[in-house]
């Protein structure tokens, strides 16, 4: 159970960091930029893929930290990136676990 606690904590810490970073970046009172953020997309894909497929506690923790960072961004930001990252990670998970 300690592994899952570690994953949850890293996800929460990542979300808090993402929220703080996102508010620093976007101080507007509305969602000003709804285009795809490539940097956040890369972080999200790497994060979710590591979180679901690494099979290692440390790497999984880093994955959840990165995934939480993007998912925890200010409302209106990081949604598409999270969805794409999650979809890619699930596809890779299914390929690795069901096809093999």
């Amino acid at each position, binding site marked *: *159970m*300690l592994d*899952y*606690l570690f994953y949850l904590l890293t*996800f*929460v810490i990542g979300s808090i960091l993402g929220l703080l970073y996102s508010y620093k970046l976007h101080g507007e009172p509305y*969602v000003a930029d709804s285009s795809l953020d490539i940097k956040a997309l890369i972080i999200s894909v790497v994060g979710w893929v590591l979180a679901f497929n690494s099979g290692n506690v440390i790497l999984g923790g880093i994955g959840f930290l990165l995934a939480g960072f993007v998912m*925890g*961004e200010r*409302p209106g930001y990081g949604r598409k990136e999270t969805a794409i990252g999650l979809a890619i990670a699930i596809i890779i998970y299914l390929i690795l676990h069901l096809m093999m």
Partner: protein
Amino acid sequence: MADILINVIIAFLAGSLLLGLHRKIMARVQKRPGPPIIQHLLHSLKFFFKETAFPKTVSMPFYIGIVFILAAIWIVGVIVGPVTHDSLLILFGVYAVYKIVEHNSGSSSGSPYGKASCVRAVLSAATELPLFAAVVLVYLVTGSMNIGNIISYQAANGPLVFSIPLAAIMFFLLLLSKSPYSPFGITKDKALISGFETEHFGFLRGFIMFSESISWYVMLWVFLTLFFGPLNVVGYVIGMIVITFITGFINAVTPILNPNHSVMSQITIGAICFVGTVLMILI
């Protein structure tokens, strides 16, 4: 001891995130951006560092004690459920005490909103009838009240949701009643401000939110364990997210019922499901 501590922290964090997700889903259904998923957790933590004020009208021992009792009963829920897989009767007792806590929390505050919520807490005990009926039906089918034995039964005979689906609906009704902004959430009707929590500030409110997060996690865990057979961690995560999604969607599109309608709806659905399940077992 370490196992209990780890499970309680997991229940708190996972429950907070799920309740945050619940708020987010409700917001998205209502075409609002909604708060970040982490918001419920941040709120809970924030209250521990806020100034705690004590209204002059409170009945002090109850007012403070009840909050710690609330936290204690849901920690017992974690111990009985995810940690030891013990008896369902203890969990039923936990839920019964929770209703008493709602009642006393409202009455001890001295606030008219708290007192109105306290009266409604007595009415809302109607949610315990479907819960009790569901527990009885699970016992009739599996022959045991022990969660470990029920898991073993399902491992051998398949998930109970397929053999007694109406009992699962009854239990789901309890989850729906306990979820935030529920149509059956008469104790926290916005006409009563925050209901029995209205006069609890600072770290006392923090403890209440801490307990609510744990209670959401425990009830989802019990529901999934009782009706969906032996699940692994991924199964629990997916199940909890799906149920949170469904309750969030229902709560977002359903107005709160008045107390009479709420109680009658719960009892009617409970009675239909109970009779239906008994017939299914007999036939």
